[in-house]
Structure formats: structure tokens, C-alpha cells
């Protein structure tokens, strides 16, 4: 190679690499990835800027003020944060055992054809719009809760010392528990389909090794197969949680829309998404609007934190021996 590099070596090399497609692919995918980050940052920026009136007036107190009074310009996020967390926890408490059990059945115990048909139907369920679930809630779950399930739970658990706190009080049919049940119905398909996929990827050798050591069918499943798929299953649970946190229409139809904090699961409540959907269009005052946007920011933070915890949990699980999915 002579010392003076010919001037077209630079452009020639560039044209060559472009022709092979690597550089272009690199640039295009990088642009899209950066685009997503950009959109998210813009979202947070807008939420931050438009909520400055409310942040300036209420400061950190916004997180634990329990009042939501548009007339006297006093706003607090506490009842909504409480409602969002309670409904999501209740929905997971119902959906995770149900979903996991169904996923185990579909992957381990059911004949393949049955398993495929049922999972196809469950995937369809995941695509149903949430308003439909809301209608299901109003017309079926609410009356059932008011006439049958509510009295049954109050009668049996209302007097138990500590748990009884959650099952007391007047039962209107709408409330935290009803919202939790409707949300559980909505998120169970996610848990089932993802967990089933993950369980199906567990290598046969694992099952066979366990069985050959004398484990029963159930012992092999529960003690070997499921722990192998731990991180994938956890991932599906957090996917379900993300949906439950943001669900708006179905929740507002069945939760009672009362911004109060109450221990009883039969009490009416309110969630962040529901109050924003209900009050945003009619909010006329600048502080009112700013408070609603700050609630949006709080929800974003909540989702962010919970997803961060999910990531940490999955990493911890992988370190503990679960197979990364």
C-alpha cells in the first residue's frame, strides 16, 4: 500500500458496506430504537411541563393528600394511587393462580390437540376490547357480587380477626373487589398464553430426569418444570400487571368512582386511569387540568417503578437457577 491513500478508498469502502446492507440495517434499526426512546422522553417531558402548576402548589404532599376537590382547588393523589394498587393486586391474586394452573394443564397434562384449541380461544380472549369486559362487569359481575358473592364472603370472612377488615361493610355490587375480578378476567389470557409458551420450551430431559429419579407427574411438574420456566412466568405476570395498572373503561364502570380510601374490598374506590378518563374533558381550571396531568405522571412513575422491580426480580430469579427465557 503506498503512503498516499487514493481519495476514492473512503467513499469506495462506504459504498461497499452500504451495498452489503449491514450499515444501513444498523442505522435504520438504531433510528427506530432511538425513536421509541425519544417518544417516551417527549411524553414524560410533556407530562412534566404541563403539570408544573400542580407540582408547584402541592409539592410532595400531592402523594398523600386524600382530598380531590375541583371546586376549592384542593387535589391529592392518595385515593387514586390506593385504588390503582389495590385493584391491580386483587386482580393478580386471582389471575396468577388461575392462569398458572391453566398454563400448566395446557402444557403438561392436556392432549396436544385440546391444548392448541383452548389456547387459540384464550388468545382470542386477549383481543376483546376492554369496554366489552366493562359491560360484562356491569351486567353479570356486579349483580352477582351484590346478591351472592358479597353476602357469602361477608358472612364467612367478615368476622375473622385480621382478614375480616377487608370483608366488612355495605356491599353495593360495585367496588374494589368487583374491579379486581373484572381485571383478573382481562389479564388471565396474557398469563396463560405466555406461561404456556414458556413451559413448552422446557427441555424434555428435565422432565425425564425428574421422572426417572422417582418423582410423580405432579412433583416433576411443580418442582422441576415450573422453576425452570420461572423467569418467563414472572415476565407474564408483570405483563398482566402492566395491563391492570392502565386499564380504564372496564374499571370505571365497576369500581364505584368514589375517591376514598377504605379497607373493605366491597367499598367503592377510584383509580388514576379512571379519574383522568372521567374528568379530563370537562376540566376547565388550569390548576385542575394540571392536577390531572400530574396524576398521569404519577401513573407513569408507578408503572416505571413496578417494571423496574420486575426486571430486578427476573434477574434475581435467573441468578437463583431459573433458566433465562
Amino acid at each position, binding site marked *: 500500500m503506498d503512503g498516499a491513500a487514493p481519495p476514492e478508498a473512503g467513499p469506495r469502502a462506504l459504498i461497499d458496506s452500504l451495498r452489503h446492507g449491514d450499515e444501513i440495517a444498523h442505522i435504520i434499526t438504531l433510528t427506530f430504537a432511538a425513536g421509541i426512546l425519544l417518544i417516551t422522553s417527549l411524553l414524560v417531558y410533556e407530562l412534566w411541563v404541563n403539570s408544573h402548576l400542580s407540582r408547584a402548589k402541592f409539592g410532595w404532599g400531592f402523594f398523600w393528600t386524600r382530598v380531590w376537590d375541583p*371546586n376549592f382547588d384542593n387535589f391529592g393523589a392518595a385515593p387514586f394511587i390506593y385504588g390503582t394498587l389495590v385493584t391491580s393486586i386483587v386482580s393478580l391474586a386471582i389471575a396468577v393462580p388461575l392462569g398458572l394452573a391453566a398454563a400448566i394443564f395446557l402444557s403438561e397434562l392436556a392432549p396436544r390437540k385440546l391444548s392448541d384449541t383452548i389456547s387459540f380461544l384464550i388468545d382470542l380472549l386477549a383481543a376483546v376490547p376492554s369496554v366489552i369486559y366493562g359491560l360484562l362487569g356491569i351486567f353479570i359481575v356486579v349483580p352477582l357480587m351484590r346478591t351472592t358473592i358479597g353476602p357469602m364472603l361477608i358472612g364467612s370472612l367478615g368476622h375473622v380477626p385480621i382478614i375480616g377488615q377487608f370483608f366488612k361493610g*355495605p356491599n353495593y355490587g360495585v367496588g374494589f373487589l368487583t374491579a379486581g375480578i373484572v381485571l383478573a378476567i382481562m389479564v388471565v389470557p396474557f398469563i396463560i398464553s405466555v406461561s404456556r409458551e414458556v413451559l413448552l420450551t422446557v427441555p424434555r430431559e428435565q422432565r425425564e430426569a425428574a421422572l426417572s429419579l422417582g418423582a410423580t407427574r405432579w412433583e416433576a411438574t411443580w418442582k422441576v418444570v415450573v422453576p425452570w420456566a420461572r423467569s418467563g412466568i414472572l415476565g407474564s405476570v408483570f405483563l398482566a400487571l402492566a395491563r391492570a395498572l392502565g386499564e380504564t373503561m372496564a374499571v*370505571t364502570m365497576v369500581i*364505584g368512582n368514589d375517591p376514598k380510601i377504605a379497607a373493605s374490598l366491597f367499598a367503592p374506590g377510584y383509580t388514576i386511569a379512571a379519574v383522568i378518563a*372521567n374528568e379530563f374533558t*370537562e376540566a376547565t381550571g388550569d390548576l385542575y387540568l394540571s392536577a390531572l396531568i400530574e396524576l398521569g405522571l404519577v401513573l407513569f412513575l408507578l408503572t416505571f417503578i413496578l417494571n423496574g422491580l420486575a426486571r430486578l426480580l427476573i434477574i434475581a430469579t435467573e441468578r437463583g437457577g431459573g433458566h433465562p427465557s
Partner: protein
Amino acid sequence: MRKMLVVLSLLLAAASTAGAQSNPLLLNAAGATFPYPIYSKWFDVYHTAHPNIQINYQSIGSGGGIRQLLAGTVDFGASDGPMSDDQLAQSKVKILHFPTVLGAVIPTYNVPGVSTGLNFTQKAIAGIYLGTITKWNDPEIANANKGVTLPNTDIVVVHRSDGSGTSYIFTDFLSKVSDDWKNKVGKGTSVNWPVGLGGKGNEGVSGLVKQTPNSIGYVELIYAVQNDIPYGKVQNAAGKFVKADLAGVTAAASSAAKDMPDDFRVSITNAPGATVYPISSFTWLLIPAQIPDAGKRDAIKDFLKWMLVDGQKYNEGLSYAQLPKIVIGKESKAIALIQ
């Protein structure tokens, strides 16, 4: 060269004037959802009569309408509640209010064993919604309904969860009849309800009331009439129990018209008079007093004139009450204020 310039400029002038005549005029408006059915009917009929004028109305809610008007994105707005002094101060131009139709709010309830209409005193409604009256057989309710056996059950209160003009009218009435309400809660499209479940929309409230025994809620008169929902009588300022109907609502407006301020920003709830239905209200169009575009200004003024005379004929067909003659007269004069 000079000849070409002269010809070109003549052509341009001809083209621009021709263009102005053949282009349709599009007016944008946004605001209240309550009068949306009658507004769409009006804009449609007006367009058929004046094919080159098109009015596009988006029912995004009174709050949205006011905001878009202040931001200048719409030519005029519509609201179920009058703009406050603060809001008016935010506007660069003066905003005029023009009442268009009347609406009313009625109490609907579901009490097992009670099939006749119930009478509600003003204190009763205020007490129920404040949470101080908790049982159906409370003396305040029972004394107004002698001969009806009311059960000793807890009242389940239902209100609107979404911000709405219906809530504004209802809370405005409550603020007038109860000082406690005025001081603790106040009036507004969204308030801090002391008790009760929230239903979304008139459908949400009536759905909850239908499903929940021992409940009471408030819905718009039109909604109740169109869906055949039973409702009770409310006591008016003269002490009479009145069942809401279009005549009673128009009577409320006539009664309040005598002392009406010139800008029409008046609340007609709890108006004096024996036949008046106390929970009634205007809904307004919000028009800027200065409209620079001559075409738009003339179209808006013409529409308002049409609305006050011909438009009112369509009200009753859609279960809206008509404006009383006094108000129509005052508004016709106020149209001249639009420059």
C-alpha cells in the same frame, strides 16, 4: 410588458372574487354534550337552507368548548354552565353568552315496595346528597310522602363520575337550597361529593339506580323521558311539588327572565313561581363579540336570528324546552353586539 401585468392583475382580481363566492364557508364550534342532539339538528337544517354555510360542531364537553374558544381554535363554543369571571378575563376578545335551549335534572330512585311517585323537599335532596339523611324512612322524606310506606333501609346515593353540565345544574340547585352544601361542596361540573357512587354518563347513573335497591340518582329530563325512567317530584321555591316537564322548565326561565342580567349569565335554578320546576337551566352558545372575518360574522349572526325563531320549533320534538318569549326578545337585541 405593461399590458401583460395589467391583464394578469385583472385576472387575479377576477379569480379572487370568484373564489370567495364559490367557496363554502366553514364554521367550527365545540362544546357541551347536553344540547348536541338539538344542535346537530339545527346545523343540519340551517345548512340545507344555506348550502354554502357549513357548521361543524364537536361535542367534546363544556370545559373543552371553553378551552378551545379561549385558545382561538373554534369560531364559537357551547357550554352548559356560564363562563366564570376568571375565564372571561382570560379571553382576548369579549365573549357573549346566548341561551339556546333549556334543560332540567330529575331525581330517579329505586325503592323496593314503592311504585308511586315520591315527593322530595329541598331539604331532603340536600340532606341525602350531603349524607346527613341516611335512611329512606327519615322524617324529612316520610312527611312529604304521607300514605307511602318507606322502608328503614340505607339510601344508596348515586351521582355522576364524569364532569358534566347535569352535575353543574344539580349542584347549583343544591348550593341555593343548602348553605351547608354551598360551603362544603359548592357547584361545578365536577365536585367533591360527600357520599355516593359515581356512574359515568346519564346511562351510568340510571343503570346503577336500576340495579341497586334503595338507591337515588339524578339524570337529565330528556334522558328520563326517552328511556321511560320513573322519577319523583321536587319542591320548588314556592313550596309546591312539581314533576318536571317542558312547560315547568320554560316557566322557570320566564320567571328568572325579569331580573336577568344583560349578558344572560344567569342561573335559573330555584326560580320563584308556583309552576316552576326548580332544577332547570339554560345552555349557552359562546360567541366572540368581535369577529374580524365578515363572512363568518354575518353567518353567525344570521344563524342566531334563525335559531331564535325557526330553530326553537324543533326543540319539543327532541324533548328540549323552548326559550320563553321574553328571553328571545332580549337575545335578538343582543345579536347587534356582535361586531
